[in-house]
């Protein structure tokens, strides 16, 4: 009896462990994550995988604020306005290879590329109809091409992995010359343009990549190649051809909404409404932090219209308003250009609740209004100072119930139809000079802005190739300012240094400028610190250089 009892207990002590086989015992598979081998085989999984790739573009480092606002600052459209610090390093041309913005943009875009590569490698061909399979692959290739477009534009020659990372040996990869990177970008966009749905297809889900966006971004890539530093002017024709495809397709166009199309169109971004006719591709943001989800951005916050009421608490459309509009941008608008008052806010809301006009272009509140979160309910209030304790009404534009002080749900445009038109004009002007079609496309953009036919209002601007080009340089600033395009435009035209010089002269020439005013002097920083050549592309991040044995830092860094 006793023996039985002992046996029972000792058996119990060991049985649980010993009755399983050895190899089973040591096999443990992840319980709360997917293995990379058993994913990518259903539509749901493919959507989750693609959402993960899109999400990298919506991250802080890319369109959240890094690329779209901070790194993009320091052009002739605007600059960082805080004189006490140099936090917007890249916009002030004070960055080094250990700069966070330089590293984070690189890291995020490559994270995106690795996910795209994995998607392309592992999407289960047998689980989908060929058409659906190609469309999904096309979407991943679209996103990969866009990531590479941004990387090659900002960094030049770059490592170009086209397969997913498997182990540490992937650390060592030499750079690929920019032209070869572009060849891959074109190949990816071409595939995408062949297989993606068009935006007017009933099955198309707005917010995702589409056929014409692939053509349009391909045109942008060709234009980049045509300009500095590659300067392959054969590419103008190819860019023109891509734009023509979109224009001839006929679905896309500009929002004209009874003469306030420009405003209506941007209100759509602000209110997260997809306007797929004009917006070929955009990055979507949503404010979901109440659920603990971060899918939001900083658009309209750090580059927004000053709003100081409420002590920086949630519940108010606060804006850090760190970016100032350049007086140079102000000067290239004609007075009746509808875009001027939209892009340059010219108002603020004080900590006392006073909606107030901002007229001095050197005031710290002279901020972009393109992605405004709020407007005065009554514009007449701008000229009225309310009594102590009385606050003037404002209208919340953003589509959220209670705005966050720091994060916004405002979408950010990547490619708009007017860009297609102006790219066409620029490309065809290079080969043919000013021509009727090109001028008509410019006029379409002008028309929406409330401006008349350029051949009548300013015939010299379209008189010859150079002046038409110069007009387009300005027109692109008027149309696309604060949309993350200007710095790369100026770089491909070789005009960044020139415009920054002009900008500093313009600032110093403003009647309100005082050379003893520290704030005013701080506006000159981007122009002063910019070095021709060195600052047209970013250094490789320090971590990349120290771990990648095949990569050398660029000269001068």
């Amino acid at each position, binding site marked *: 009896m006793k023996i039985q009892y002992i*046996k029972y207990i000792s058996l119990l002590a060991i049985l649980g462990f010993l009755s399983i086989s050895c190899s089973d015992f040591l096999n443990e598979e992840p319980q709360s994550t997917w293995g990379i081998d058993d994913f990518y085989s259903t539509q749901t999984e493919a959507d989750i995988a693609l959402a993960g790739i899109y999400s990298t573009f919506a991250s802080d480092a890319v369109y959240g604020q890094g690329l779209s606002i901070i790194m993009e600052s320091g052009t002739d459209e605007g600059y960082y306005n805080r004189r006490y610090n140099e936090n917007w390093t890249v916009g002030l041309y004070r960055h080094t290879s250990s700069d966070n913005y330089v590293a984070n943009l690189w890291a995020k875009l490559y994270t995106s590329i690795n996910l795209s590569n994995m998607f392309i490698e592992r999407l289960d061909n047998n689980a989908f109809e060929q058409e659906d399979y190609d469309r999904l692959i096309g979407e991943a290739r679209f996103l990969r091409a866009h990531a590479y477009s941004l990387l090659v534009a900002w960094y030049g020659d770059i490592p170009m992995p086209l397969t997913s990372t498997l182990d540490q040996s992937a650390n060592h990869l030499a750079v690929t010359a920019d032209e070869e990177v572009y060849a891959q970008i074109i190949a990816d966009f071409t595939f995408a343009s062949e297989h993606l749905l068009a935006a007017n297809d009933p099955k198309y889900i707005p917010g995702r990549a589409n056929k014409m966006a692939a053509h349009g971004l391909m045109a942008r890539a060709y234009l980049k190649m045509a300009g500095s530093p590659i300067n392959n002017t054969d590419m103008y024709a190819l860019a023109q051809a891509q734009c023509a495809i979109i224009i001839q397709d006929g679905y896309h166009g500009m929002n004209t909404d009874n003469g306030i199309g420009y405003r209506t169109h941007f209100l759509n971004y602000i209110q997260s409404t997809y306007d797929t006719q004009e917006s070929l591709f955009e990055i979507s943001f949503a404010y979901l932090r109440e659920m603990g989800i971060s*899918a939001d951005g900083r658009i309209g916050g750090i580059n927004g219209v000053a709003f100081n009421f409420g002590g920086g608490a949630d519940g108010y459309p606060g804006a850090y308003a760190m970016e100032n509009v350049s007086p140079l941008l102000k000067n290239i608008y004609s007075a009746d250009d509808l875009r001027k008052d939209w892009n340059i806010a010219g108002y603020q809301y004080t900590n006392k609740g006073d909606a107030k006009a901002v007229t001095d272009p050197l005031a710290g509140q002279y901020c972009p209004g393109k992605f405004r979160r709020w407007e005065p309910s009554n514009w007449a209030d701008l000229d009225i100072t309310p009594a102590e304790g009385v606050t003037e009404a404002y209208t919340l534009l953003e589509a959220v119930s209670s705005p966050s002080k720091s994060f916004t749900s405002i979408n950010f445009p990547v490619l708009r139809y007017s860009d297609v038109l102006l790219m066409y004009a620029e490309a065809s002007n290079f080969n043919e000079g000013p021509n009727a079609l090109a001028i008509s496309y410019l006029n379409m953009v002008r028309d929406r802005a409330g401006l008349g036919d350029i051949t009548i209002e300013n015939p010299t601007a379209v008189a010859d190739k150079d002046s038409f080009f110069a007009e387009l340089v300005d027109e692109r600033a008027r149309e696309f300012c604060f949309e993350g395009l200007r710095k790369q435009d100026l770089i491909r035209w070789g005009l960044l240094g020139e415009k920054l010089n002009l900008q500093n002269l313009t600032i110093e020439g403003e009647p309100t400028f005082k050379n003893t005013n520290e704030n005013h002097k701080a506006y000159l920083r981007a122009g002063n610190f910019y070095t021709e050549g060195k600052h047209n592309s970013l250094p490789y991040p320090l971590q990349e250089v120290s771990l990648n044995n095949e990569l050398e830092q660029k000269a001068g860094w």
Partner: protein
Amino acid sequence: MKKIFYIVLLLTIMPFVAFAQNSVSGTVTDANGEPIPGVNVLLKGTSNGTSTDFDGLYSIQTTKSSDVLVFSYLGFKTTNELVGNRSEVNIILQSSNEQLDEIVIVGYGSVRKRDLTGSVAQVSSDELNNTATSNFDQALAGRVSGVQISSVDGTPGEGLNITIRGGNSITGDNSPLYVVDGIPMDDFDPGSISTNDIKSFDIQKDASATAIYGSRAANGVILITTKQGRKDGKTDVRISASHGVQWIPNRLETLSPYEYVKYQEQVALAIDNYVPGQYVGYFKESWVDPELYRDMEGTSWQDEIFRIASTNKYNASMSGGNSTTNVYFSTEFLDQEGTMINTGFKKIYNNLKFGHKINNKTKLNGYLQYTYLNRAGVGISGNSYTSVIRDAIQFRPVEPINSDGLEAGGYDPTDQSQKYLFNPVKNLMNTDRQRRSDVLRGSLGLTHRFNSDLVLKLSGSYQIDSRKETTFFGKDTQQGTRGSDHINGSVTNRRYQTLSSSNTLAYNKTIDQHRFSLLGGMEMQTKDYEYSWMKNSEIPTDLFGIDKIGLGISPAIPQTLSSRNALLSYFGRVNYNLHDKYLFTATYRADGSSKFNKDNRWGYFPSFSAAWKISDENFLKDVEAVSFAKVRAGWGITGNNRIGDYDAYSQLNASTSSGYVWGHGENYIPGAYQSNLGVPNLRWESTAQSNIGLDLGFLDQNIELTVDYYNKQTSDLLLNAEMALHTGFNKVQQNIGKVENKGLEISLNTTNINKDKFKWYTSFNISFNENKTIALNDGQTAIYTNPNWNGSYSEYQYITQVGQPVGMMYGLEFDRIYQLDDFNWDNEYQTYVLKEGVPDNGALPVGPGSVKFIDQNGDGTINELDREIIGNPHPKHFGGFSNTFEVGNFDVSALLQWSYGFDIMNANKAVFEVPTAGKQSGFAALSDAWSPLNTDTTVGAIRYMTVYGAPPKGNQMDDRYIEDGSYLKLKSVSVGYTLPNEALEAMKVKKFRIYLTGQNLFTWTKYSGYDPDVSVGKYGALTPRLDYSAYPQSTTIMGGIDITF
């Protein structure tokens, strides 16, 4: 595997089938009733002999009733005993010489101290017990050479950092493996056991001692053996109660009311550019005149959040039984208030341990333990967003005579620069954070002696550690008032379940002068982890606290996670002892872990060691002064597998920040990202360690000296190593790099006086360790770390560089403050322009009063290229010195503990000693800020000619904030009085002691922070000795009584 199963099964059953008969057996104990293992038992006049097992049990064949048994054991008087007709002969041996014959617990066995071949140190349970501490780890500092005990901070009940012989891992955990009553435990919480229940505490330092624990032993092993019931038919009931007070002995020196008002006057003047204007006007309106505040006491916000706290501790235990069955039961209740308001530590502990002899050969033992731990209080240290210490330092110490409309403390809710501040008293009082742990442990073991030589031990155990953390931010907190979630509560549940089985078979044999012992064993373990989290926000009332978060209207998406790992091991050990002079030990262990891929799953860990007892050689035997001398040498390999359960797998995960929205109405779609790159060849980190030691005893062991030298080479570091970013990964767990630790340890124990009425013992130990990074990732020369203690001070402040120790402090070298003659005056721009050749400090503008750094590379500006190693966190040496006196019935002991020659990064100074031109107060040094009238200073200007004196972002850490942390602490003192025997007999009490004891009584240091024993860095070995907003250390005094019936 099946085969093993049958073998074990067979071994389990076999003994019950074939019982041996005709034997005498019994237990050999010492005078205290503790069993003595390893006693030689010889049938007089024959060569038949055996030795006792770990429980002092023996069994021997006899032939006739006149047989005499000879019990001999070194250090005890040899005893002859006539067997007679008895079948059970129990013997109490009287000791002859205590120290050398203490039993030292080693992996899966025990050995007499004199027979040790490895480096093992012991801490006596009395030493741990006689301190005013709540958990045993707090009492360890300074006790043992080679073991560095350092605090994170002073949070009540929090575990300490224990590093044995220097840290091996760079990004991994360096804490030792605990083995409690034979069961290895990762993540052991020192709070989950009562110090009272610890019988012995053995620290295995070198690889020859630890390698038998293989893959988990690289950081050293701490073996804890707990008390068990008496076996002599007697019963002890012990009750102790103690009460203590704790307080924070010092304060950080902040501006006094007068200094603060003077400083505000300076701020106003500086903003007015030294021509009294608008701001000086505002100042005068509210404050009138600094002289009015000269004698004001004001508010010390530190005093407001600190308190004198009480601790109550009660302990009861019962120990009883006979040679067949023994039982030990203990219970403990501890209630410790924290020295910061609304913080504290509670513990309820129950332990039932039993042993039962089924027959002469077979014994069962087991225990059941339950511990409830609760650590209350908001996280004080290392929080980069809210910090009550920061709030207490920066709140102004006095209110203006004419109100300026701000809340108490000068806190201005509308001021952007103050939006992180909040009334620290309110924050503490209205934040309810509880970290509760319910630890349940059980174990059942079976020991069977086939004969005197062959012993089988089987054991199974489980541990369930269920942790619940709740945090509730009431209305009057930083979060409740200013955060976007307002009143909110969250609940986190974590459950760790460990099942393990450990089985050994041991064989001992003595043939003439050869003594062998062989041990073989296998172990299995599985660990399960489950996690869940929920949170609700916008709760309309804080009436219910965490008990009704369902009232909230803004729930966060709940999270769950689970993971599991398994470990399978085989091991063996051979001991060989020749002439009792030459000792050899070899161990071998094979560990298989589920954390690695099939091909790399198994790790093999050998060790060899030898010792030579020179004192037993003829040439030393006659030297009277030398009572003992032994040389030891050993080498072994140990491993480390402390990585995530699935780090070897490439995984995709979806997090709350990896999703995206699309479609009309912007539907949220969870998004996948690659959360881990499973490097295919991920394997064990291994540490090869050599050790040479010398044990010497003089004057009949009144002087004992131990010296050890070791050399540890850790290779294939499990390093969360940086990747080239184009791979899409920032860091990936890999086997990369090499770290070296070399060191010397000396400990000296002396019995200075040993008289009946007066005894005096001294013990001294000192340790030297040199740590060096030998290699990092391929091509990588350094790991730069941003300690991230505060988001506004985000820069690389630590460096782990090849050729240097791990985790060096890294920053700029302070030169001086820029003076007027560094500049030319530009009249046109009305500004100061740096003279040709004078470097700027990294960002413009720079002016007189700005902070000037040394431009190391001479490029005219200051950036990351000018950073240097500015501090070393590793002490040159550390140790302890203790004296114990027994005078009559009084006992007194005192321990001094030190750590010498290391630096602390006093990040508090980088914040509180830099003028900001705001309303915040700060350290007293702010009074010394640069101004045209106060140029001889190292504190930058508040502002001069529109230029602020604070250093630019990215250049905020310099050597002004690195301080020498060397300290000597009066770590503990205890005074006790034990009632004399006559009184005890009258009271029918076995023992009665009253005592008074103190912990952390005094610290001699030049360090200006609360306490130099601090290290709140978030990234372990990469960011050591960082002090920012740490919960200060307390001084404790406790008095109590201890009665045994």
